[in-house]
């Protein structure tokens, strides 16, 4: 239980750090951010500029510490202010979020499963066919920046072959519904972005998993298992794979940040309107309230994954049970 407490502690500290970074950044960066945001807004009354100045602490003789705690309080109650087009930040986020969750969620699960499986099998049969073909193939794939891979897939399958649409999450003019036609439309729009993500993520994971397996396979208890005459598949699963994955679960979770980065790029490349695309347009329009809220969201997402991985490790790894 001390383990969980420690991890929870880390969770809180990181959350606090992210919130603080978010708070400090506009205040320490060069330039007058309030003006920048105001300039991006259209037809906003001067009172908004003053409100922004307060929010960003510009030209205001306010107690920074007080503002800080106000800010923290606002964050916890979900009040992130308005975007440059005067829409509540939360509303915009909530519209885009489901699309990203679908895309990224599915892609991550597939990548993780595929990556782990391939990595385990490749390591198990060292020097076999899979192990000699996979690494070179993989690292060509992982040397591709995720957005370029997306562009290539787009060029080949959408532009040249015309099998998939080139952008968006569903065809213009359709009305969202649960009809098969609409769902099919959604899936066909999501396919290429998802494929891009899967190829990139699975590539990295296969490599990590394979190396972990290789190290585990060199352990004495694997040799012992072989000495005992256990069936090969049992040694592979029960004595190696499990031991290779489990301690690295948290490490895998920490890579969620990388996944999110990939999601931003992929959504941008395919103009897929999820939170990644939203984040990018926020950057483009200097929509600081939206940017900051999304940044917090991303950090929180990674933190939750890490915490979940920690829990899973605590439950599944007997070594963490005792002090």
């Amino acid at each position: 239980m001390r383990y969980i407490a420690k991890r929870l502690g880390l969770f809180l500290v990181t959350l606090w750090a992210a919130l603080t970074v978010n708070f400090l950044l506009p205040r320490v960066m060069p330039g007058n951010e309030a003006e920048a945001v105001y300039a991006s807004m259209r037809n906003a009354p001067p009172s908004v500029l003053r409100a922004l100045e307060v929010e960003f602490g510009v030209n205001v003789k306010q107690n920074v510490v007080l503002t800080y705690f106000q800010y923290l309080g606002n964050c916890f109650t979900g009040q992130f202010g308005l975007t440059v087009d005067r829409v509540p930040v939360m509303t915009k986020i909530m519209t885009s979020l489901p699309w990203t969750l679908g895309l990224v969620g599915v892609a991550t699960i597939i990548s993780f499963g595929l990556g782990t499986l391939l990595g385990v099998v490749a390591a198990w049969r060292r020097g076999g066919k899979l192990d000699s073909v996979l690494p070179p193939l993989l690292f060509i794939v992982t040397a591709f920046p995720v957005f370029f891979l997306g562009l290539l897939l787009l060029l080949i399958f959408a532009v040249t072959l015309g099998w998939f649409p080139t952008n968006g999450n569903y065809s213009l003019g359709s009305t969202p519904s649960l009809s098969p036609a609409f769902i099919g439309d959604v899936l066909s729009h999501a396919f290429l972005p998802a494929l891009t993500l899967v190829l990139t993520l699975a590539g990295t994971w296969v490599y990590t998993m394979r190396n972990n397996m290789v190290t585990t396979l060199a352990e004495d208890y694997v040799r012992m298992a072989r000495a005992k005459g256990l069936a090969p598949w049992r040694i592979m699963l029960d004595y190696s794979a499990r031991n290779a994955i489990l301690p690295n679960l948290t490490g895998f979770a920490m890579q969620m940040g990388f996944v999110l980065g990939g999601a931003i790029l992929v959504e941008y490349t395919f103009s897929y309107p999820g939170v990644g695309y939203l984040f990018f347009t926020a950057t483009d329009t200097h929509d600081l309230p939206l940017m900051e809220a999304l940044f917090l969201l991303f950090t929180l997402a990674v933190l939750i994954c890490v915490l979940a991985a920690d829990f899973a490790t605590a439950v599944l790894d007997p070594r963490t049970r005792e002090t």
Partner: protein
Amino acid sequence: MAAPAMEANLSAAPATQEGFGRASFQRFSAAILRNRKATAGLLLLLFLAFVAAFPQVFTRVDPNAAIYPQAVGPSGAHWLGTTQVGQDVYAQLIWGTRLTLIITVVAGGGATLLSVLFGVAAAYFGGMVDRVLSVFIDIFLIIPTLPLLIILAAYLTGAGTVAIIAALIVTGWAFSARQLRSQGLSLRTRDFLEAARVRGERSMYVIFAEILPTMTSLLVANFMGLATYMVATAAGLQFLGLGNTSEVTWGTMLYYAQNNDAIQGGSNPWWALAPGFAVVLMGVAFALLNYAFDEIGNPALRAVRRPRARRAA
């Protein structure tokens, strides 16, 4: 110190005692040359460095001159076609090599330095220092890199390439630091370090003269890994328009190409394909070297032939 006699311990050691003194430098270079990945990567990298240093050898055309026919595909006059405003894509590709390589190497080097600083210090000093540094490293690991990078770059628009490199370094060092810390921890208890400590050597000596040489292959592998990451990440950042768009790099080429729908059919697709593949090439070079040094540092990872079993089928 006598060369360690063959140990009957068949488990792989995470870091061997390679990297000691001059004899080991020879062994080191021999190991590099023997490793096919390393040789290939090195050759590729040298080629790219050559292009970066002497672009005039490869093209006489001014990459910024917008005087050619607009948005045409590859032809005899323009091997990779032209951009939307009539610049020669091939010329841009060649001249863009320099800045791209510089950004990659400097950002990669800076991040490696930071990761060595934090990772090795955490491993060496242990105790409270380790705990504080570990939390620090973990925070940077958890905070998602690209979003943070985007935010930093957005706040710093107009501040130029140096700022971009700084942002890349700040967001990229943490993973390597964590690796170095765990490798450092496994070295901490090794006998030769104990011997140095017992001799009364100061911490700085132990770190520089004993620990770091042993970790040489791992350090180089880390740098290569970071460089691979930097190539793609810098390109991604510039692709989004957050780099210094007035400079010619492969990333900015991609930005302009995307803005003009090069791939989607609005313009010459090679405008995007060429810099993209170039990025892949540079990434592959560094990745080859990364994997090569990984193998040199951790013998268990080396490619093994299936032993010719003298067994019945």
